């Protein structure tokens, strides 16, 4: 609201974002009621939406991007969810073109480990360093999705589905990361980062 003290404004925004984030987190649990399932429409969107959710390493890395963005504060908090899908699309194009990239799955696991550690250690590098790091990891995630993009009528719905799912995971991370405004919340966020790093490490070690 115009003229409102900055503190109340941030609280209102963070509350709205938190509510939205928690609501969006429940979306993947919704059982779709489909009279007709088909790749060209709702079926393709659902398949694409589920794609990032089928890999725990994808999920934790995407949540970590949002967490870290919230931790770093403005402008990272909104810059990362805006830029990440675009860089991920670039990675997806590489996957579609079958450009050989070694160690994609390893890169995804490393992304979860590194991003989780950034949050756990409360790392606050310069914005450009954070952006480069996140962009590099976005290439790997995009490549993995691009390789599995279906040809034909379902491509649009599928790509929209997985881009939106990825974005919503970011927003979940942002929503959770906003609790770092409070001392106890800060501990919870860093603990979440540690868990994410452990999940990534488990994938690297071949234990998951």
């Amino acid at each position: 609201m115009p003229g409102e003290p900055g503190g109340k404004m941030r609280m209102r925004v963070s509350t709205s974002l938190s509510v939205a984030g928690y609501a969006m987190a429940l979306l993947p649990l919704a059982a779709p009621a489909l009279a007709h399932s088909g790749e060209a429409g709702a079926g393709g969107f659902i398949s694409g939406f589920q794609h990032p959710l089928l890999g725990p390493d994808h999920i934790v890395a995407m949540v970590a991007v949002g967490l870290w963005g919230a931790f770093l504060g403005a402008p990272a908090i909104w810059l990362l969810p805006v830029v990440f899908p675009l860089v991920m699309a670039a990675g997806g194009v590489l996957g579609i073109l079958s450009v050989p990239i070694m160690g994609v799955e390893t890169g995804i696991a490393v992304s979860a480990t590194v991003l989780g550690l950034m949050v756990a250690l409360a790392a606050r590098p310069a914005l450009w360093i954070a952006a480069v790091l996140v962009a590099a990891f976005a290439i790997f995630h995009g490549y993995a999705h691009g390789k599995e993009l279906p040809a034909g009528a379902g491509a649009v719905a599928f790509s929209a589905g997985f881009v939106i799912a990825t974005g919503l995971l970011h927003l979940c991370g942002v929503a959770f990361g906003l609790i770092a405004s409070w001392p106890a919340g800060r501990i919870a966020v860093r603990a979440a980062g540690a868990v994410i790093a452990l999940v990534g490490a488990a994938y690297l070690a071949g234990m998951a």
Partner: protein
Amino acid sequence: MTGWMILGIADMLAPTHVLAIVPLGLLAGRDPWRWALLAFFIVGLTAGSLAIAAAVRETPAALVLLVIAATAGLTVATAWQPPSVATGLLALAGGMALALNTPPQATIIGGAVIAQISGIIAAMSALALVIALGSRARAPWQRVGLRIAGSWAAASAILVLALRLAR
């Protein structure tokens, strides 16, 4: 008659079309001449429909729509405000491509006309709705939300464009 109307609306609101309409509407929503841009879109839709009626041959309309979606989405994501003329031309091209990418599937002329008119109204309404929503975004978090939506649309369009060009 209802069947042809539903067919026309469903064809016009296919995923590729919605992918183009949303970022185009968000881009137009930020422009002070937004309702004039809607008029450009309608002109494009009409021109494209007339071309269809004149039995124009197959066009790369689907690819054009993806390019428009990517361009509009990227512009919204970067929060850059292009000149109204540029956005108008994009809306005109978008309308035309939408109509050209929606050849009537009806086997009778009457049904085809009903389907086409229904589709035009659906596309017009969808764009108007997105323009209205986009123009109401005033709070900083709402503007960020629009940028994120533009980013998502651009990313999806880029991926599908790459897929169609590569395969």
